[in-house]
């Protein structure tokens, strides 16, 4: 009988632990600080996240596993918490994205009079969930992590208490989330019921049966997709996104559309590629249809938007469709081949979407309505900010000079072409053209002549905002020239 006492690999769990401890510390610290000094908590949050990012470095070389159950006989040991390359890449994206969100939030928290202690606590708690989600390799840890990401997010959205839209946004997010989680739990319980396993690798082993497919499992796999469909805002679980993004403080919208979405994608990818690879002929075509519908609906709806955050919301729905494409192209026996493409696109998307959100946050401080018309002629008064937004939009559209987006699209296109899912590639090709329509219109309006009598916004940019815009622009430009860091995985 092996010992029930486990040794925990503290280095592996250090990053989420640090963030969790930091969250509690800031919540407490806030109550002891005089109101004038509360600004400092934001900087502490940013520094703490950078520290957690630093803690990832020692984990790079080898695979770390912890919280394991021992194997017996032919069964190999399985672990709940694994830090491999996939985990590291996503944890790095989550932490770096969170740093940018924290920087953007500093002025928002101050100006919108959001209680800072609660705000940083909720944000960091959600980040903790995203970090463990990327490392979880059993269904229970996966679900709990997913909920840890989501629950603080409801409150974050609603923290702008005097704004009715915030409460509405939070309620929508909450309802869709609860419903999709319930559906997902039902699906997972079916899978547990049939296989008797919670570890993803063991589920995969028990599914790998050459006989006919168990109908209950097929239902279970499809239902399990629902929960993650909500997180990544895939159609038909996308309805919350535009209203929630618009009602939330803009940095929170950035968080939902980048960090929380990346967490959703890593969860989905883990579940499908580690847990259910033998059922790829079931979930592959399902995801392919979801991807096609998601990108088309997102792009068509984005065409009609007049408000910047709503446009980004729909655009991020469409982008989710692109990220699903490689998973949709998966076939039994080739599941491992498509995963890198999704990872690469999620990383690239994170960089370019944060770039767009940084500038939108900035403009939103001066034009609370944040209409697209408010951006007209921005290049006259704020050339650098306008350039940052234009570059981010070019990346999202995937056209030079936004080479980062172009390379990311090439990676995604490769998967369906390679796996012979031509129709999906053609649907995506058409969607790229539709997408260009709104990105280009917006980018061009930055350089258009301002309407007579209108004054494009001009402002002093605070340190935190400036760093956020600069870092995201710098990352996007650098990765456009040398995209290796993002594509390395593929």
């Amino acid at each position: 009988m092996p010992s029930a006492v486990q040794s925990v690999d503290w280095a592996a769990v250090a990053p989420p632990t640090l963030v969790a401890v930091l969250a509690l510390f800031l919540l407490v610290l806030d109550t002891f600080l005089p109101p004038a000094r509360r600004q400092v908590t934001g900087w502490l949050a940013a520094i703490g996240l950078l520290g957690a990012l630093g803690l990832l470095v020692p984990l790079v070389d080898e695979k770390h596993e912890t919280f394991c159950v021992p194997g017996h006989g032919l069964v190999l040991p399985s672990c709940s918490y694994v830090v491999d390359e996939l985990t590291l890449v996503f944890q790095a994206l989550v932490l770096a994205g969170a740093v940018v969100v924290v920087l953007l939030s500093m002025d928002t928290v101050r100006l919108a009079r959001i209680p800072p202690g609660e705000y940083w606590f909720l944000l960091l708690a959600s980040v903790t969930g995203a970090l463990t989600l990327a490392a979880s390799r059993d269904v229970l840890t996966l679900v709990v992590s997913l909920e840890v990401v989501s629950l603080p997010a409801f409150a974050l959205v609603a923290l702008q208490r005097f704004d009715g839209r915030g409460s509405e946004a939070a309620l929508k997010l909450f309802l869709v989330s609860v419903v999709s989680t319930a559906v997902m739990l039902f699906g997972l319980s079916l899978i547990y019921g049939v296989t008797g396993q919670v570890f993803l690798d063991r589920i995969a082993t028990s599914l790998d049966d050459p006989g006919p497919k168990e109908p209950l499992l097929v239902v279970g796999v499809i239902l399990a997709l629902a929960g993650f469909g909500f997180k990544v805002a895939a159609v038909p679980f996308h309805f919350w996104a535009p209203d929630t993004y618009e009602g939330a403080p803009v940095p929170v919208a950035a968080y939902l559309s980048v960090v929380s979405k990346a967490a959703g994608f890593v969860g989905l990818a883990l579940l499908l590629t580690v847990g259910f690879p033998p059922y790829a002929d079931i979930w592959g075509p399902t995801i392919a249809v979801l991807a096609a519908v998601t990108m088309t609906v997102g792009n068509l709806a984005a065409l009609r938007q007049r408000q910047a955050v709503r446009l980004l919301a729909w655009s991020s729905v469409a982008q989710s469709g692109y990220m699903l494409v490689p998973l949709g192209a998966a076939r039994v026996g080739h599941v491992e081949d498509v995963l890198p493409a999704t990872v690469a696109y999620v990383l690239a998307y994170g960089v370019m979407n944060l770039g767009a959100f940084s500038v939108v946050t900035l403009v939103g401080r001066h034009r609370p309505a944040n209409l697209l018309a408010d951006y007209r002629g921005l290049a006259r008064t704020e050339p650098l900010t306008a350039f940052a937004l234009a570059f981010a939009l070019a990346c999202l559209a995937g056209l030079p000079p936004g080479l980062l987006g172009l390379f990311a699209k090439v990676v995604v296109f490769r998967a369906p072409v390679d796996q012979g899912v031509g129709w999906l590639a053609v649907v995506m090709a058409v969607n790229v053209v539709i997408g260009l329509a709104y990105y280009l219109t917006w980018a061009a309006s930055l350089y258009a002549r301002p309407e007579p009598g209108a004054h494009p916004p001009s402002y002093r940019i605070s340190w935190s905002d400036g760093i956020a815009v600069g870092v995201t622009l710098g990352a996007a430009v650098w990765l456009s020239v040398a995209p290796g860091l993002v594509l390395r995985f593929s």
Partner: protein
Amino acid sequence: MSTSELLLPLLLALPLAGALLLLLAGGPDGDRLALPVGLGASSLALATSVWAAASNPATDERWVPELGLRFHLGIDGVSAPLVLLTTLLVLLCMAYLVRVRPEAGRLRALVGLLLLLEVGMLGTFLALDMLLFFVFFEVVLIPMWFVIAQWGDDQVPGGRVRAANVFIFYTLLGSALMLLGILLVGLSAGTFDLTELAARGGAGLSHRTQVLAFLAIGLGLAVKTPMWPLHSWLPDAHTAAPTVGSVLLAGVLLKMGTYGFVRIAVPVLPDGAHTLAPFLGAFAVVGILYGALACLAQRDLKRLIAFSSVGHMGFVLLGISTLTTTGINGALFANVAHGLITGLLFFLVGALKDRHHTADLEVLGGGLYERMPRLGGLLAFAAVASLGLPGLAGFWGEMLTLLGAFDPAGGLSRPYYLVLMALAGTGVVLTTTYFVKVLRVVGQGTSFRAWKDAVLLRDASTHELVVWSPVVVLVVAFGLWPGWLLAATTPVVRRLLGGGA
């Protein structure tokens, strides 16, 4: 790296540096800086391109190993004429802007975008990696969109922004399909390198893959060329674009499509080309006839020349579709000749339009020869060059193309191509008809009173003549000594068509 390895990157870096300098450096003095930088960068680029064409350098560096994308550039007899055409026309456009300022102002941004365009055009012609070709193919889109949408002319139906949008959406849809084709080839063959793939000559690619890939890549290139019926973006874009924009659009951008056929589609996918060449030839001939007939119906001179491009590019495509050395040589010759002649035509019509603020044939009326003899004479010269008068550059391309169609490659139906040849011949007659009509309506006769009384209507200035003269000289030179160009292209075309066939 040795000097010769640095030469081609330098050729791209010069206009890029100029563009970045102008587009990113703000400040009120920007407009004064624009032309010195523009002229400097583009003349250095011209000098570098001449040097490169003479020394045949190559560069092959890793860029994005994860995608299999290599920074592989090279220059040979097929690309060199187009590279020189690009650098020459860009320099002439810059020189033209010295005196003829755009009405919409913002010279700095315009010059910067033109330099950015030059980077994309040169890169497309130099790329020897399919993905790199695609990247450069896309580079031109956004600068050209801005040139049309910001400096364009609103007299087209729907306005200049619509014209620019139609241009970019059409091209992007085409190039997205082209990317799918490129990926299909690259992933099946295991490499994106064009020298490697051309040397294999389609070996290792199944017939189905080749046909599919040729279809996808061909559609993308056909939109750019443009091939009837995918041409409908072109008339509005040309008509709306400012003079320098039309010159580069007609002179260089269209050639990126036909060049892609010669560089990628035909040599890499010979089976696919053989299967689909008859269709390509048919569409090409419809384009020739349609373009000519459409020209007869045009009132706007700029639009007329745009439609004449559809016809001329039809000849180029017909030449390619014969899959013979003669036909493709003719196509390449017609490519360069069209670039020069139509570039000149757009310069001339732009000058007419700047003076009269209209390009409507009825409003312009007759009497150009008496009113502005130099401009009128040049217009007559360009028109007869364009209709293919022997002794000028336009003649040889069309003749070689028809000759190629007379004796198409083995496996292609000869009677079918003879029919195509006969129809294309009719197109030549129609082309003559509409150009003669233009000269009669605009050139001959007497001027309307309104133009007679206008004080500001000056004939072509010395500055304009200086800018245009290199093109005129080249049109005559290539007409009299076509061997210069053919000597450069023939060996390369033989190699691309597969082992000295």
